[in-house]
Every structure is written in structure tokens, then in C-alpha cells.
């Protein structure tokens, strides 16, 4: 049977064409919602940019950054506005609970846009039968987290649904921040030559939650890294104005966030595997389960894209803050291949680092 196999060049040609056509375009082909739509990777992008974002489309929304930047009529001042919902299970995990996650997460989305976080709203959806003692503990954590971050919870709402219609508690937080000086941080700003900085060790949160949730029977002393980042980000912005982009590496991990930047800015990003900080226990858990730490969610770490001449200053500013003691430069922005993120391995080879596809299901075999 004579079969025509395409050559390498033909294959690359085709893939490139399809990629160009798809660039910035995400397609929703699914007929029902699947869990992957919520994991922050490709499926999430397909849902949001392929359907929801299209229907809601307007210039402010279409930026699709961590916060919406809102102008105020008759003033130079601008507001940052963001929202997030929290459905983590289990609701209490090593290092935190759903409440402080909700406060810190929204504070961080405001902080990475360069705004000073000020006010939060809290929406609670409670399942009938949920223990009041647990609720109180969560609310107290939220207040403590808000105080630590220097924000106030100024409005909220509570709903109760029948047993079975929600899993104990779901929380939505929305936040408003104020831009103190003109600053333009965005995924579209990365320039070839910029350095990529990471604020600390990766994988803690995702692994902590996975070990607490799944019946994997692994004992480990791994804590979620949930924390408010507005303080350390303020230190960074005070130290240098040459910050082009900040993003917190939540769902989908560092890999997903770098891909978002590479796609939006139409650049390539090279990361050096040996520079990436990771705790030995987190590394061990990833090895046992066959997971890539670069795709695991963090709740207290961010990426900074900084002009190369100011990279050292920026790094110093991060390291001077206790939250950034393990900060490091992990890579750089290149001109091409556009839209691609790749890793220089410890061995001296290369591999492409893609956005997370689906859930991080452990590889076993």
C-alpha cells in the first residue's frame, strides 16, 4: 500500500498555518461543561475566550488581564476591578483554607495589575447542613487575611442552598484597587531581551491540596503558599519602573502564565530548568505522581517580566522582602519562535513548555 507521508517541512508549514490562524483565537467545541474548563489551561481559555468573552465583548473586557482597568471620568485616576470564585476542596488544607485563599487571590489579581488593593466584596453560597463552627473559622481567617493585606471587606451577600446543591461553601470575592501612579503592566508588554523573574518556589499549593483531597495516601509536610502579594509587589514597583508585566502563577502554574504572556506579546520565552526553585518534598511528590511542577497551581508566587538593565535591581527588591527570599531570574524573552515557551534542560537539551491541557492527572505508567 503506497502511502504518502508528509515531510518535516510540510508538517511544520501546516502546524504553523493552523497556529497562526488560531493565534489568540480559542474555539469551544464541547457540548457540555467538563472539569477541565475550570482548570485554567487550554480548555478554560476555549470556554472563556471562545464563548463567554465573545458574547460580553467590549474594549475593557477584551484586554482579558487579571484585572479590568477602569477610567474615571474627569480624572487621571484609574481603578482596577477584579473578581474570583473559590470552590477548592477540601476547604481546610495544610497552610490555609478557602476563606484566606479567596481574600489573597483577589488582592493578588489587583496587585499584579499594579493597583493598590483597597476594598473587597464577599459573596457566600452555603450548603444546608454546613457546620457554623467551620463557617466562623473561615470568616475569621478572611478577616485576618484582609487585615494582613491592608484591605477592607465592605460589602457582601449570603445565600443558602439545599443539601447537595453546593459542596459545603463556595466563595466569590470581587475587589477594587486604585492606581497610585501611571503604570502600564500587561501581558502585551513583554519585549525581547526582558528577563523573567520568579518570586519563589513553585508547586506548594497545588500539591498540598491534591494530597489533602485525593486518596493518594502520601504523607508530606507541604503547606499551601497562599499569601497577599501586594506588599512585595509594592516594593518591586518602588524599586524600578521598568516592570513590563506581572502575573500570579495560579491555576495552570508557571507554564500557563508564561504561555499567556508569550502569546499576547508575540514573543518567545526561554526558561532555564536549573534555576527554578522547588522544595524537595514538592519535587518528590511530583516525581512519584508523574506531574510537572511547572503546571501546578501556586497561590503566593508571581512572575515579573523586567527590562534586562533593571533585572538585578528588581531581583534585589524581591529578595529583600521575606516573601521573596528565594526569588530568582529564571529566563528571558526572545524574539522567536513567537508564541512559544521552552525550557533549557539541565542536561543541555530543550523542550517546549506548553500551557496545561486538562487537569493535572498524575501519570502513573
Amino acid at each position: 500500500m503506497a502511502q504518502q507521508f508528509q515531510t518535516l517541512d510540510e508538517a511544520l508549514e501546516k502546524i504553523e498555518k493552523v497556529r497562526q490562524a488560531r493565534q489568540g483565537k480559542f474555539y469551544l467545541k464541547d457540548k457540555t461543561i467538563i472539569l477541565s474548563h475550570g482548570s485554567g489551561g487550554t480548555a478554560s481559555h476555549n470556554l472563556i475566550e471562545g464563548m463567554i468573552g465573545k458574547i460580553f465583548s467590549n474594549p475593557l473586557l477584551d484586554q482579558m488581564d487579571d484585572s479590568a482597568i477602569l477610567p474615571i471620568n474627569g480624572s487621571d485616576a484609574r481603578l482596577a476591578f477584579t473578581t474570583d470564585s473559590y470552590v477548592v476542596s477540601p476547604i481546610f488544607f495544610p497552610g490555609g483554607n478557602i476563606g484566606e485563599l479567596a481574600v489573597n487571590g483577589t488582592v493578588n489579581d489587583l496587585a499584579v495589575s499594579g493597583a493598590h488593593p483597597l476594598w473587597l466584596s464577599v459573596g457566600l453560597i452555603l450548603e444546608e447542613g454546613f457546620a457554623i463552627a467551620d463557617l466562623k473559622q473561615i470568616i475569621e481567617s478572611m478577616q485576618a487575611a484582609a487585615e494582613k493585606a491592608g484591605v477592607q471587606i465592605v460589602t457582601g451577600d449570603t445565600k443558602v442552598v439545599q443539601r447537595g446543591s453546593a459542596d459545603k461553601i463556595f466563595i466569590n470575592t470581587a475587589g477594587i484597587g486604585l492606581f497610585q501612579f501611571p503604570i502600564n503592566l500587561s501581558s502585551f508588554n513583554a519585549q525581547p531581551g526582558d528577563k523573567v523573574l520568579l518570586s519563589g518556589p513553585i508547586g506548594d499549593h497545588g500539591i498540598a491540596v491534591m494530597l489533602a483531597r485525593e486518596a493518594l495516601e502520601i504523607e508530606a509536610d507541604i503547606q499551601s503558599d497562599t499569601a497577599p502579594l501586594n506588599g512585595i509587589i509594592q516594593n518591586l514597583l518602588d524599586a524600578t519602573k521598568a516592570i513590563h508585566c506581572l502575573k500570579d502563577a495560579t491555576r495552570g502554574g508557571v507554564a500557563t502564565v508564561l504561555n499567556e504572556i508569550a502569546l499576547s506579546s508575540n514573543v518567545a520565552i526561554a526558561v532555564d530548568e536549573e534555576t527554578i526553585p522547588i522544595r524537595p518534598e514538592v519535587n518528590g511528590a511530583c516525581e512519584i505522581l508523574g506531574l510537572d511542577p511547572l503546571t501546578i497551581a501556586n497561590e503566593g508566587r508571581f512572575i515579573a517580566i523586567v527590562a534586562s538593565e533593571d533585572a538585578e535591581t528588581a531581583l534585589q527588591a524581591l529578595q529583600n522582602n521575606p516573601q521573596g527570599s528565594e526569588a530568582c531570574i529564571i529566563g528571558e524573552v526572545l524574539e522567536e519562535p513567537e508564541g512559544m515557551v521552552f525550557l533549557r534542560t539541565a542536561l543541555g537539551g530543550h523542550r517546549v513548555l506548553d500551557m496545561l491541557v486538562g487537569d493535572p492527572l498524575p501519570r502513573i505508567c
Partner: protein
Amino acid sequence: MKYIDEYRDGNVAQQLATEITKLSKGHSFKFMEVCGGHTHTIFKHGIEDILPDNIELIHGPGCPVCVLPMGRIDDAIAIAKTEGTIFTTFGDMMRVPGSEGSLLDIKAAGADVRFIYSPLDALKIAKQNPDREVVFFAIGFETTAPSTAVTLLQAQAENIQNFSIFCNHVAVIPVIRAILDSPDLQLEGFIGPGHVSIVIGLHVYEFIARDYQKPVVISGFEPLDIIQSIWMLLKQKKEGKVIVENQYKRLVHPEGNLKSQEVMTQTLEIRPHFLWRGLGSIKHSALKINSDFANWDAEERFKVPGLQVPDPQACQCGEVLKGVIKPWECKVFGTACTPESPIGSCMVSPEGACAAYFNYGRLSMASQRRELLAAEK
């Protein structure tokens, strides 16, 4: 990490690569790594980037996820859809497409499908849920078969009745033989599966050297293990030797693990033949649960369609698995078939050659392309 990091030393790797370049000078070599775990390591660390161009690695069908035909996935799905069943599986199988979707799809539609780390966890779930039927989807080569065997023995010893195993274990020797007998294949040697060999030992590979005149080196899974194995193959070629060598001496013994072999004999038996994706039917190439343990055989307990479903038209997984074509030579590679929307299993499994190339190899493809374009100018 101890016994891992040392085998990932970049400086030693570079030195080894230099030695390999010297040793292989003037000739071309094609070596096949049989095991999916090796394919994964090769790509994860970018090993091909540091090897000289005259050495080509052919990625063989050693990925038990990739070689499972769609019909068996459909059977698994049929079992999982059965009312009251808890279907347990390793993570890798969740997204493999059957004729009408994957285990992940039916999970989204309400089936109780759970991923677990060990078959013993499935047994535990059975004990905790006495009113539900718990099934474990057993896949893997001989590495994983002993764990299935021990689980069966334990189920029997503890008289756990609401538990069964859907057994899809495959054997590595028959598939290597099928590759060797394949007319369109050109190979100079094999990088042998390290963990399978822990169980089955080294003597079983001797026929490859003796009857087919191809050297074999059983390799560990860290980058330096694989690179050293390539060096050992080249050394054999240089010295005119054709033997089975053991690079993975720290874990593999020549006679294998006798206890593992014992428990397998107690509980499992060889199927007369088994359908492999892309490779067709291979005799004596898979394991089933034997009659002593029929009580825990999911194929006895459940009605499964048992159909032989042909691969989708566009899918060229078969050729890729045999190493006849490279992943990018498949017409749908990277376009209609991507890790996100896979057509074939080679793209779903993280150890499949296509997934590895798509995720890890595209960069070298991109630079090769630039060179091609530059050359054209």
C-alpha cells in the same frame, strides 16, 4: 533527590555525548527504545539535542496506553457505565479516546470514575464501599502485572467479593519479536526496558542477539542511564559484539524478580492472542486472569461489547508505534490531532511518541525549519 539527581548531571552528559560522537563517527545508527518511559525521558530532558546527528532514536511501541485498541477502551467504558460501579484507573487512561469518548467524558456525564495510584487503593475502596461494585482497570507491561497479581491474591485472602479487575496487561517480548519480524524496519540495536526487566530478567532477550543479530542494552530511566546505554550499544558495534548487556545493574538482576514471577504464575495466564493498536493481532502477547481467580475477573462479571474497533481513518498511530514513520509524518499530527483534541492514543499518553514530539520536540522542529528556510534563500 538521591539516586535520581546524580543521573541527571549535565556536565557528565556532555562528556558522554562527546564520547558517543567519537565512537559513532563515520556511520549512522538507528536504535529503538522500546519503553514509553524511555521515550518520555528522552524528550523531557532533550537528550536528542545533545546526541550527534548520525544517531537516530526510533520510538517503539512500549507505551501500554498507546497500544490498547479502541475496542478495549469501549469495553472499559461499558463497565464504568454500569449502574452502581466504581471504576478505578491510573491517571493516564482517563483521556484516551474510545469510539464515543473517553473515561473522562463519561465521568463528566456522571459515572463514578476515580483515578488511583495503586491497585491496592482500589481494593481499599471496595472494602469501604461494600454495596458497590469496584473495578480496577489494569494496564501495563510486566512491570505492573505483579502488582495486579498481589492485589488478586489479597482480594482472595480477604474474601472481598465486590471487587474485580479488567486485565489488559501486555508482554514486551512478543511485541519486540513482531517488530523484528517486520519487513520495513531498519534497526541496529535496542535500548531495553529497565523496569520490565526487573521482573522478567535478562535471559529472555537473548534471542534478539542470537537469532536477529541485534545488540540489546537494558537501560535505567534517568538521562545518563539512557545515554550510557547508547554508548554501550556503540561499543558493542565497534567491537563486533552482539550480546544482551545490563546498564541498569543497580536494580536489574539477570534472573529477574522471582517473587514477582511467582505471583504472576499463580494468578495470571497468557492469552492465545491479543489485538494491539496499529500492530494487529500478536500471539501470546497479553495476560488474562486465570480460572482460579475467575471470581475477580471483570470480563467474567460484566458484559462487555468485546468488539474489534478499527482505528479512525486519519489515524496513523500504527505506523508511529512501529517506528516506521516519525510523528510529524502523520498527516494529522499537530493539526487535527493535538494533546488537547487527540485522535489517536499516541497523542494522549504523555509517553506516546506524538505527544512527546508535540510537547517537547516542536522546538527542534522550529529551528530545523528556520535552517531549511535559510538554506533556501
